[in-house]
């Protein structure tokens, strides 16, 4: 699992910005579909974002990769059109659709011109509601998926991710990559696609946002046309994943010059009352930009790496603090040692008032900047809904960040960061790791 890049986790983790001048309207269609809308009529297009809670974690036993393959095949023929006819129709309308399967959600990201709105929505409806899953289309997309799976078998980043997930999550779907294995994907059929479709693309788990050149009434009608014929109810969501790692270093021998290092341990749920505080602490420790402690100690001071970062990863059925870096094999031991020492220092000594103030300044200043484009805003708004936040979070979020005290930050640092539990997975031919094992 865990295909989302760390940066994406960050974005998901905190919903949006501070005093952004984004005016969200909550719209309910005549048919009862809820959506958040920001009207922006200055450019003649709409960004429409759909999310279906669930995603690849809903793969049935033995069918790993079914949801991923199904999602990748949605555009490969629908209703009266085969894959090429569908693509030609979409291209003629200059509409842009992308369908992606994540562990916890299917995302459908679309943009379409005002002048082609009705036709674009009708085409999208066909892909979502009447996909064909023709044998030859499934076969063709399967070939692409298998090619990716094979490529990842020798990609040190993918090996690090897969090893971590396997060790951490046992027999939960999160333990394996959502693309599936060569064996599981080879066995999937068109019927499996139809089953997966009805399990995940259902109205009881849908989240919608729209930003752009459209009114609330127009959006309501659009949504009923687009989504009204989807199944009412999907498959039950999976159980919580049990976390199975208890600290140490796992080395995967792989002949490559630079070791990839993945590290972390259990984290906090998105709805944990301490989540935002932990988010601020993480910003200080390993957050984005050049200012974090880990960037300072590992890159700037020692030149051990090009990049290092950590993120809170609040998945639906598990939660992690996760980091990643890479360094020449000869210096892997030193790098692991520095990370471990910084983890211990954070846990034992916490952060300083200056660090907290700087992080608050950055986070509160950066928040409104996220709301600068229809597609970006639509993405943020749909993520907020999945995180169960209300639109006024946009206004209040910076005040909540400002209110965090040094004592709270350090309590959370102490409770969350546990050097004993810190687990490393190192892929490469690292040297000097015995010292820290």
């Amino acid at each position, binding site marked *: 699992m865990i295909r989302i890049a760390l940066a994406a986790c960050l974005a998901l983790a905190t919903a949006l910005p501070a005093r952004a001048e984004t005016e969200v309207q909550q719209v309910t269609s005549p048919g009862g579909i809820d959506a958040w809308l920001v009207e922006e009529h*200055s450019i003649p297009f709409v960004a429409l974002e759909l999310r279906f809670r669930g995603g690849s974690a809903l793969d049935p036993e033995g069918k790993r990769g079914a949801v991923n393959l199904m999602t990748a095949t949605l555009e490969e023929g629908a209703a009266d059109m085969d894959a*090429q006819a569908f693509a030609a129709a979409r291209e003629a309308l200059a509409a842009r659709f992308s369908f992606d399967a994540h562990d916890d959600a299917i995302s459908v990201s679309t943009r379409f*011109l005002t002048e082609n709105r009705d036709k674009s929505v009708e085409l999208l409806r066909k892909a979502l509601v009447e996909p064909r899953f023709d044998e030859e289309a499934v076969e063709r997309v399967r070939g692409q998926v298998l090619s990716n799976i094979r490529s990842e078998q020798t990609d040190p980043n993918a090996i690090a991710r897969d090893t971590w997930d396997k060790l951490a999550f046992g027999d939960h779907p999160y333990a394996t990559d959502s693309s599936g294995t060569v064996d599981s994907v080879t066995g999937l059929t068109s019927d499996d696609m139809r089953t997966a479709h009805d399990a995940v693309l259902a109205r009881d788990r849908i989240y919608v946002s729209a930003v752009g050149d459209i009114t609330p009434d127009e959006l309501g009608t659009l949504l009923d046309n687009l989504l009204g014929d989807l199944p009412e109810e999907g498959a039950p969501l999976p159980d919580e994943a049990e976390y199975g790692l208890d600290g140490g270093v796992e080395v995967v021998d792989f002949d*490559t010059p630079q070791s990839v290092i993945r590290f972390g341990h259990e984290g906090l749920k998105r709805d944990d009352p301490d989540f935002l505080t932990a988010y601020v602490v993480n910003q200080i420790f390993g957050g984005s930009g050049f200012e974090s402690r880990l960037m300072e100690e590992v890159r700037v001071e020692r030149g051990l790496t090009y990049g290092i970062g950590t993120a809170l990863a609040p998945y639906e059925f598990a939660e992690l603090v996760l980091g990643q870096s890479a360094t020449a094999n000869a210096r892997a031991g030193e790098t692991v040692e520095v990370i471990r020492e910084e983890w211990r220092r954070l846990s034992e000594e916490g952060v300083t008032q200056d660090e907290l103030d700087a992080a608050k300044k950055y986070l509160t*200043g950066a928040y409104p*900047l996220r709301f600068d484009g229809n597609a970006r805003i639509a993405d943020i708004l749909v993520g907020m809904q999945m995180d169960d936040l209300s639109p006024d979070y946009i206004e209040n979020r910076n005040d909540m960040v400002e209110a965090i005290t040094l004592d709270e930050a350090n309590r959370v640092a102490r409770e969350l960061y546990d050097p004993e539990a810190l687990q490393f997975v190192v892929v490469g031919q690292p040297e000097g790791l015995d010292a820290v094992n």
Partner: protein
Amino acid sequence: MTRLIALAAFVAGSFTATLSASAAETTTFTLDNGLEVVVLEDHRAPVVVNMVWYRAGAADEPPGASGIAHYLEHLLFKGTDDLEPGEFSEVVAANGGTDNAFTSQDTTAYFQRVAADRLGLMMEMEADRMRDLQLDGRDIATERQVILEERNMRVENDPGSLFSEQRNAAQYLNHPYGTPIIGWKHEMESLTLDDALGFYRTYYAPNNAVLVVAGDVEPDNVRALAEEHFGPLEPTEDLPERARPQEPPQTAERRLTYEDPRVAQPYVIRSYLAPERDSGEQERAAALTLLAEVLGGSSQTSVLGRGLQFDKDIAVYTSAYYNGTQYDDTTFGLVVVPSQDVSLQEAEDALDAEIAAFLEDGVDPEQLERIKQQLKASLIYEEDSVQSLANRYGRALTSGLTIEDVEAWPDVLQSVTGEDIVAAARDVFDRDRSVTGWLKAPEGGTPAPETAAQPAPSIAPEVTQ
């Protein structure tokens, strides 16, 4: 303090040039010391992107010091007479902004994304480091380790990138585009402070830079801030003419095979030397841009997608690429990632057969019409991201093009005909100017691969800080 010279006045007789193809207002002017300024207005959000683009990239490096342009880019975060090492990014972050930089063959660019009312502070710091960099030996040595780790990450750990370096080196017989942007490892290891400062003093100057400001700003205000902060900077008086060694006639086809046990998914790439966009003469580049779309733009409806992924089960992925926005000769490329039991030879033969058939059959007019519709729409979608607009201008202006060329480009694309495309194809597909590369695992090796989630090859344009 500085009088402004309107660039637009030279081309259009007016101080302000408005891009007809775009809703974003575009204003351009030039300071007395030669700094060109482009202002792109977008008032939807209180955000601004401040970018400084230098007309200096990896292809402008002296021989033997490959990687110095990119290394210098890293060092620009290491302090000036007024800023401590790291302080630049610290100040940006303290103002809620983000900053970064990137280096390509033709340009090095630095940017911040920040609240619109902090623009002056960003310009003040950019102006400071344009002329007053101050470095110490320790920072230099540590940062050299960082770029070597960056090379490890981007190249040494990725057989697709190693393959790409070998193909590029074979493609250019004489031009420095054959040298990787990040540098050859053995030369990177011995880069010195003097190498960096020599490059810096020559090229980092207002008369070799373009300032692009995009977002919630007023041109008059930008002009005043630019005059205040950049106006006092001295230009480089004897700025060398931008003339790199050019390619001789290429008269022999090149072929290479790169083997690495980390390759699990083999593929074949053919690249051809191709003309770039030239100022005032963008027609051929426009035809090649459309040729890439016709051949490989869509997996379902392009020539290669239809022929190799649908009609025959030859490939799991096909692509054609062309980037005309370069200062000197660029490349046109074709990619085939074969299906499981198809050999690289079969894949290459099938590719050649498709291209030959295409040259006979010509362009499907309906397909061409759809591509043009999408190009029109992309102008509208692109307005949603002020940063991508800023990139479009910055990249063009540091690649030998003018504002006028940028504004004319959408219409030039629309005027290309099917005959133009076939003619451009016949011209560019000359095997004597081509490199054909196979990427594969050694015989009997474990199936292996690598490269990243997508089998898309790295054609790789730039390296960031």
